[in-house]
């Protein structure tokens, strides 16, 4: 199985636990309500890492969004009710008792709820099994933080037909997380704009068209350095997507016919990347191929060092 670096894991200041922020729900917090990412960095976990200093068998719980250890007989109590679930989870591997790894230390396994929690504060958080978390019997776990993020707002006029928005975001994260860039889904909004659902993008170069200007005016108060992706039914003429945008309104249009990689490709353009190949010499192992991301042969596709440098230099790639 290919190794998969997945960002968007967050620390919850209410319960001290680690939880996944890649879904619409913020899960269920043992301290009450949903988890809260306030003050958290963007943590990255590795799925299917081949051994070494890492301990496997950590799982995502689809009920509470938390990370828990599935290597014991008990599954631990879940804040959402019953025990934790590993349905749909990858097998995450976490650095264990290896001080030489330069990642954030002081994460602990709780023998009461099986969850992973941060022991770097005075509080021991809140444990679903009662009281605070326990570090008894735990080693020292270390987790990497992604130093930079892009913040993406999704605005849907028409949902894509070949891949879901979440599948496209997951594809983008596979590529971006692997080079140390997190992808935050900062918001989702449905827009009812029938006049712009088939958006004239002209040649998709140079100045945006009047329809693009009109469409991109629907940022609705998102931050200046946040990217807004408008999912439309189609572009005129037919493209999978188009990254041309009005000045000061960074974003792109993605059409319903797009591939799994079109979202990451178009945002790559917005971050300053050009196509990396020609029809005579296609590079189908690269995200920025100009010969069609449907042709990509190695999932996830590559971005090379110079491209990563450009992406991280963009004002749209902000500190996590």
């Amino acid at each position, binding site marked *: 199985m290919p190794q998969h670096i997945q960002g968007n894991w967050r620390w919850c200041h209410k319960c001290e636990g680690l939880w996944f922020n890649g879904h619409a729900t913020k899960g269920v917090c043992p301290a009450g309500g949903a988890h809260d990412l306030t003050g958290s960095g963007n943590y990255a976990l590795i799925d299917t890492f081949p051994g070494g200093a890492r301990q496997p068998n950590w799982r995502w719980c689809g009920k509470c969004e938390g990370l828990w250890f599935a290597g014991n007989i008990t599954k631990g109590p879940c804040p959402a009710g019953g025990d934790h679930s590993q349905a749909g989870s990858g097998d995450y591997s976490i650095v264990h008792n290896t001080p030489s790894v330069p990642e954030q230390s002081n994460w602990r396994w709780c023998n009461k709820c099986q969850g992973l929690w941060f022991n770097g504060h005075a509080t021991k958080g809140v444990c679903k099994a009662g009281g605070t978390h326990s570090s008894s019997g735990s080693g020292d776990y270390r987790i990497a933080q992604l130093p930079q993020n892009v913040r993406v707002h999704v605005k849907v006029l028409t949902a894509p*037909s*070949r891949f879901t928005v979440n599948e496209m975001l997951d594809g983008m994260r596979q590529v971006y997380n692997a080079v140390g860039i997190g992808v935050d889904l900062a918001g989702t909004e449905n827009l009812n704009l*029938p*006049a712009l*659902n*088939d958006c*004239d993008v002209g*040649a*998709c170069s140079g100045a945006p068209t009047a329809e693009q200007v009109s469409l991109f005016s629907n940022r609705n108060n998102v931050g200046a350095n946040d990217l807004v992706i408008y999912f439309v*039914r*189609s572009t*005129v*003429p*037919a*493209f*999978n*997507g*188009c990254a041309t945008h009005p000045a000061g309104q960074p974003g792109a249009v993605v059409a*319903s*016919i*797009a*591939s799994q990689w*079109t979202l990451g*490709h*178009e945002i790559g353009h917005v971050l300053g990347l050009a196509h990396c190949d020609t*029809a005579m010499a296609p590079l189908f192992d690269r995200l920025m191929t*100009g*010969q*069609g*991301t*449907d*042709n990509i042969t190695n999932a996830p596709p590559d971005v090379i060092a110079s491209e990563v440098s450009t992406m991280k230099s963009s004002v749209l790639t902000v500190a996590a």
Partner: protein
Amino acid sequence: MPVTFDDVRAALLPDEPQYAAAAASLGTDALPHLAALVAGDDINLASKATYLASMIDPADTSNAVRTAAEHSEPVVRVAAAGAAGNLGGDAAEPILLTLLDDEDVGIRKVALLSVRATPGPELTAKITELSQDRGVDEVVRTLSEEIIEGG
């Protein structure tokens, strides 16, 4: 060398096809392949093939745009509506008349944007009808009014 189906498909697979360059390099030999793609099940390639065909063949002798205008997938009909703007008046007008009767607001909007400065009498009558129809979507009615006033 003859243009092959794979040549045409390769020109359409990019996320952002370079239509003008593809039209220049492939030429009319591409038209049978484009017509086949328009009639096929892949709506990504069908919609892109529609537009490229219109750039190569302004008379729509291959019937690619005509076929796309009657496609079951709205996305392909939108492509036909946009492609009609590249066709000559004689080829474009019957296609636009068909698309202006489409129930889909987006398709009608794109079709109206493809109407030339001086539409023929039948098309003018259709646009006038739309501009006066209070039951039609506001986007379509407003665009129709603008065309009539501009004409």
